[in-house]
């Protein structure tokens, strides 16, 4: 404390007759008269709830706005639809279970775990059926992975459209899974030599089905039954789902009921009519499984404006790659004229979300914010225009282009595109 500051309050206190806090005398700090928050509040006097009032705890009512949200005009019916993770308001890297985005094709299956079975059939030595109890007897592993819908940012192919990072980038979550290496189950059944593909099928009314190459199935896929330590949420596939690290979310079949081994892919609806990437020339890419490296600034962003005015400002965001880790993220404040290396913080594991920060002194002038991820294979996140030059604008899926937020002098942010 300076002498000035030290002397100030005692004079003021004497003159106003109140024990006011230091105010207005130190350059760069906000001035304030008596802060009404510095008072005896009800919670300082009254007794609060006892234990067990909320046996399963929920966030503070003051956080009620931090929730999954949908975009109603996107789909015909909420039963076959999507909502979005509120990433603008989260920090760290782990997504809380209750706000992990949902994507269902025929609603949330209400599966009774006692009545659930996992079947393995097809080109195996032994066609097998497992109860949940059987599955719990296999050796388990724990891994943190992101799950990103292939259509994340898909509404932005033709230009900036949705004003909120929750909507442009919120088809993603990142949790710790507890599960059984899929390899163990396949070894239990004995995959025959011609078994090159696996069909994974869900127990929901969509009978969700995807073909997965055996190489991936034997590599790092998990049969997961826990997320962040507790049972999978019903909307995330309770009691058991497939985890396909780094690959598009649609393949992570929920409510997993069956695995069939075959000698070729099935070309089912979700890998032909959907989740194929139509290029400008009318030809479509299929089996585009891996999620390319991507990043986005989560704050400031349209739902998380700068409200404190000029001065020290925290810029933060998320980065991820389906091919490895994110050793580096670059950030620009001026629309890409000058870039700065952001500070990576928190755990860095393959195919998981990474957190970055850039702490800067805001001069109160408009900003054009972008982030650019580098993954461990040397891939650098491209601009949206670089993607469009190769793919056109009708791909829907796999839009990993660089996102721009324009921040005005008031600190409000908007989804824009720039030259």
């Amino acid at each position: 404390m300076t002498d000035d500051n030290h002397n100030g309050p005692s004079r003021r206190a004497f003159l106003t007759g109140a024990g006011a806090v230091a105010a207005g005398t130190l350059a760069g700090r906000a001035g304030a008269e008596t802060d009404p928050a510095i008072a005896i509040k009800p919670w300082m006097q009254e007794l609060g709830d006892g234990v067990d009032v909320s046996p399963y705890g929920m966030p503070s009512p003051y956080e009620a706005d931090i929730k999954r949200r949908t975009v109603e005009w996107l789909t015909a019916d909420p039963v076959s639809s999507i909502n979005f993770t509120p990433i603008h308001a989260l920090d760290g890297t782990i997504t809380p279970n209750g706000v992990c985005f949902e994507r269902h094709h025929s609603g949330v299956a209400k599966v009774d775990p006692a009545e659930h079975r996992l079947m393995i059939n097809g080109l195996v030595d032994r066609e097998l059926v497992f109860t949940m109890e059987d599955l719990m007897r296999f050796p388990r592993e724990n891994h943190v992975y992101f799950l990103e819908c292939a259509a994340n940012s898909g509404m932005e192919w033709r230009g900036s459209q949705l004003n909120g990072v929750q909507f442009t980038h919120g088809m993603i979550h990142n949790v710790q899974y507890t599960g059984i290496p899929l390899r163990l189950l396949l070894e239990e059944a004995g995959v025959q030599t011609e078994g090159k593909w696996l069909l994974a099928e869900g127990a929901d009314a969509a009978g969700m089905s995807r073909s997965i190459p055996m190489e991936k199935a034997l590599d790092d896929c998990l049969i997961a039954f826990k997320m962040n330590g507790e049972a999978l949420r019903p909307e995330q596939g309770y009691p058991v789902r497939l985890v396909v690290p780094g690959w598009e979310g649609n393949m992570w079949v929920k409510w997993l009921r069956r695995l069939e081994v075959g000698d070729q892919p099935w070309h089912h609806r979700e890998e032909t009519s959907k989740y194929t990437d139509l290029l400008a020339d009318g030809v479509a890419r299929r089996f585009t499984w891996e999620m390319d490296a991507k990043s986005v600034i989560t704050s400031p962003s349209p739902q998380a404006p700068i409200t404190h005015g000029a001065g020290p400002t925290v810029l933060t965001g998320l980065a991820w790659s389906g091919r490895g880790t994110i050793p580096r993220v670059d950030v620009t404040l001026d629309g890409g004229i000058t870039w700065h290396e952001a500070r990576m913080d928190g755990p860095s594991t393959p195919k998981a979300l990474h957190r970055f920060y850039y702490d800067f002194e805001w001069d109160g002038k408009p900003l054009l914010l972008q982030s650019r991820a580098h993954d461990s294979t040397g891939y650098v996140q491209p601009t949206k225009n670089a993607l469009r030059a190769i793919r056109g604008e009708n791909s829907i899926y796999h839009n990993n282009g660089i996102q721009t937020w324009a921040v005005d002098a008031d600190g409000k942010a908007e989804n824009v595109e720039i030259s």
Partner: protein
Amino acid sequence: MSRFLKLALLASTMASPLAAEPLGLGRTATPEEVSVWDIDVRPDGLGLPEGSGDVMTGDGIYTEKCSACHGVFGEGTGRWPVLAGGQGSLSNARPVKTIGSYWPYLSTVYDYINRAMPFGDAQSLTDDEVYAITAYLLYLNNEVDEDFVLSSDNFNEARLPNEDGFKPDDREEVEFAAFKEEPCMTDCKPSVEITMRAAVLDVTPEETAAKEAAAKAEAETAAPATEEAASEATTTEEAPAPEAAPEAAPVEVAEAPAADPALIKAGEKAFRKCKSCHQIGAKAKNRVGPVLNGIVDGPAGAVEGFRYSKALEAAAEDGLVWSHDALTSFLGDPKGYMKGTKMSFPGVRKEEDIEALIAYLRDASE
């Protein structure tokens, strides 16, 4: 190998949960159990059950169980999937991805209907019903005639037009070289301009600041702005944009030929698709669509007691006459020819069918 490495390898082997020997967990699935759940069908016919179904039977089942969402002609209602039409539109600005224009394999149609449709009553159809609906969807896409019967015997002969329209993921070859260059960090461009703003479109849901401001400022124009926004909006995989009909292709046809009995007969057959909504002849009444007596070379929007779309009313006021050429353009692509028409029919694909239809309309009116 160093001693340390050997020890490390040994340790990792011991710690690994990847047991090579089966643990003996679970139990054998009986063939009966497998048959209950193993319903998948593959392009090579694996999994396809015995059975058959014809177009007309499929029409009946489709009308009852599918058309509420997918539309009478597979055109899709609201944002439900469009199933027919769109052929040749894949490289357009607004491609229409349907079974006829996009799906590579018919087995996918069978498999999906069988596992997931009708929406909310999955796995309720018999094998023959699935064959019939699949046959009808081929018919709606002009791939087969109305007397077509699809069965386990001829299934593998049926091919969808876009089978060769797919290629494997080539991102590594096409994109990685450009996307692995060390990027610029300083003085990367002389200046920057904003080229597009999300707030202009204003399709962000709920109580965002932009939405509130727009709602207050533009209260009077809010409705049309929203409508336009929805049609501008790119959509997710389940949601094709409205007004997605391809550009109308002008069809050059010679003057109407003299009445040709064979042509009229072909037209009568082609008219069956129209009959869901239109009647023609002495006892004809307005239904979903207007009576068509005297339509050829008659003035547009002239049938009494029928409520036309605003688009058609405007065209009628401008003096539109359903000449041979005008009808040809309209029937080939109704929404492309007349944006805003109430006619949900996606259009007649073959020029000879249109020619026959016009001949029939002329003949049946008399």
